[in-house]
């Protein structure tokens, strides 16, 4: 029973069954079910990770690969898949009333969908999982059940649905030209897509998947949704969901569109994302929206990193993405009680010294203070950009650095308020224990990352080596070598 399919299926099952516990006086089961299943999924993925030898594919339904849907299990997919249940557990909403159960159900659905996105090897299946994640996110975005949350969720839905239409058009274009959906199969046919139509199809997929990845022009939903919804949900969306959407784009980019033009597009949009996000954050006066805009900027960096060719790009991208996952989730958790105006934070450090210290730690890592992992991730991106060395890349390098400076400005504005003397003796409330605990765990992770940076990098090297090798992918899936059943 170590089939990674279970990591997708079990949360789904849990989501289906969870509403039943609301009626039957089975609250205790309801409280346990979700976390237990997520933990199980995590364990399963972890077991697969430790036992991992070489990439393999799972032909779902037992149909030989190009015909049926395949899951492709490699280190890249596993890494992101593993992040899903773990982060979801950490950000588990809790509670046992009807609304809470629905929210948990949606969280499980989101987790299942994101795990599926990490593993799926089929274009349309990616789309379906993406949509599942999107619908679950709409629900989560509206979960705080306030007026702003409904408007924000509706606007989010509008962008995302329109994006889906565009994606669907893109998938139709690809199907028109190739007649297949399997990524490995598409990889062998990538010549056919190396023309304007193919590139247009890629652009459409990018726009569609980009909505959740907070890609530059289609990210207008970000600040209002994060501001209107609960901070755990914001952390889940900003930290986790966006990364898996990026992963989907990267898979498609690596396998189906290995063209320079596609990378350039990603680079351009990523750069614009950094610029727009950091600039908008500069004048944000409440913490939540500041973090939201900052996360747009950070995801711009992630996209820029993935736009770099070869292993270096993948390593850089994975590092930045994982770092942002940890840091942004934690920052949103800490912003739970501190979500208001920056000026209201005066004296918060006296009420919640640990929370303030953690905030500083995460902010510093986000800014790239060596030897915290944020520095290394930034280093990998920047050195990759410098190596790649065309004008556009140098521009991106400059923009990222400029973004960091702006980021320093506004994050420090928060930090200085935290440690300022309280005004009129109104001290912002201390953190709730679960949030503090979760962000404390993430901080430990961050510190561990700083210490173990070199082994991690070595691991990423092997990960990237296999992930960037299209041949391995194609042969594993189509050559029948690594197929289970």
């Amino acid at each position, binding site marked *: 029973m170590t089939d990674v399919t279970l990591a997708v299926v079990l949360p789904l099952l849990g989501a289906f069954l969870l509403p039943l516990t609301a009626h039957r006086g089975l609250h205790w089961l309801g409280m346990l079910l979700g976390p237990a299943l997520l933990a199980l999924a995590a364990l399963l993925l972890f077991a697969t990770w430790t036992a991992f030898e070489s990439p393999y594919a799972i032909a779902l339904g037992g149909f030989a690969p190009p015909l049926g849907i395949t899951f492709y299990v490699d280190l890249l997919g596993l890494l992101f898949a593993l992040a899903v249940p773990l982060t979801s557990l950490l950000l588990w909403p809790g509670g046992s009333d009807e609304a809470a159960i629905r929210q948990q159900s949606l969280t499980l659905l989101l987790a299942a969908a994101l795990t599926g996105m990490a593993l799926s090897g089929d274009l349309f299946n990616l789309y379906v999982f993406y949509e599942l994640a999107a619908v679950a996110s709409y629900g989560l975005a509206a979960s705080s059940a306030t007026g702003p949350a409904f408007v924000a969720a509706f606007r989010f*839905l*509008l962008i995302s649905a*329109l994006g889906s239409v565009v994606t669907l058009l893109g998938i139709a274009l690809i199907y028109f030209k190739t007649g297949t959906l399997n990524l490995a199969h598409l990889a062998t046919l990538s010549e056919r897509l190396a023309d304007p139509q193919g590139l247009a199809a890629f652009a459409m997929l990018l726009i569609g998947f980009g909505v959740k990845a907070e890609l530059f022009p289609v990210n207008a939903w970000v600040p209002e949704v994060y501001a209107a919804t609960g901070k755990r949900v914001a952390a889940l969306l900003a930290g986790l969901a966006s990364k898996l959407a990026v992963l989907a784009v990267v898979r498609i980019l690596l396998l189906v569109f290995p063209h320079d033009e596609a990378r350039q597009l990603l680079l351009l949009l990523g750069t614009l994302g950094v610029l727009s996000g950091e600039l908008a954050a500069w*004048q944000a006066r409440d913490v939540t929206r500041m973090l939201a805009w900052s996360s747009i900027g950070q995801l711009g960096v992630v996209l820029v990193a993935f736009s770099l060719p070869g292993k270096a790009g993948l390593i850089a991208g994975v590092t930045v993405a994982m770092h942002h996952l940890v840091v942004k989730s934690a920052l949103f958790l800490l912003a739970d009680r501190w979500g208001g105006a920056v000026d209201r934070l005066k004296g918060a450090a006296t009420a919640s010294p640990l929370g303030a210290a953690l905030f500083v730690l995460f902010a510093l890592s986000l800014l790239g203070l060596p030897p915290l992992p944020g520095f290394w991730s930034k280093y990998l991106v920047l050195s990759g950009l410098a190596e790649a060395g065309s004008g556009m890349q140098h521009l991106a390098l400059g923009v990222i650095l400029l973004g960091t400076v702006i980021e320093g400005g506004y994050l420090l504005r928060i930090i200085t308020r935290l440690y300022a003397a309280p005004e009129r003796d109104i001290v912002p409330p201390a953190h709730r224990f679960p949030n503090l605990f979760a962000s404390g765990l993430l901080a430990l992770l961050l510190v561990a990352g700083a210490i173990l940076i070199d082994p991690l990098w070595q691991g990423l090297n092997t990960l990237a080596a296999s992930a960037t090798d299209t041949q391995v992918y194609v042969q594993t899936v189509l050559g029948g070598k690594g197929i289970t059943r």
Partner: protein
Amino acid sequence: MNWAIGLVMFVGAVGLSVIGIAGMLMSNHLFRMVLALAVAEAGANLLLILAGYRWDAAAPILLPGHSTQAMVDPVPQAMVLTAIVIGVGVQALALSLVIRVRQHYATLDMRVARQRMQDALDQAAGVVPPRSQEGPAGERPLPAPTRTIEAGGPHD
């Protein structure tokens, strides 16, 4: 001839999508936006179906005795089925959100709803809205249409 049919089909698919998108972007009415979304999805689905069409081919159903006949590609059909259902789900959710927005803000106008959301967010965060009360020249805030307010009370 075939080429012309193809063109008509493509024009239909693209047209539906674009009309839907236009509806979503140029209307400010929440419900119409959802309707327009349905139109746009129909366009995309049509294009998807077209991807599997073959001249002179039958539906992909095996009937005894006709097993050698050319059939259209079944995969896009399956995909469209999925896409339609997804669309239904999204639209249903969108409608429930529209209902709630109307209950909360007594409006179905996107601009008004957005403005009220922004104000509510700013107020909750304790941030003074960055614009002056007079409003910048050119986009003076008009009084909310009284009709919607009358219709919008949750009491009756």
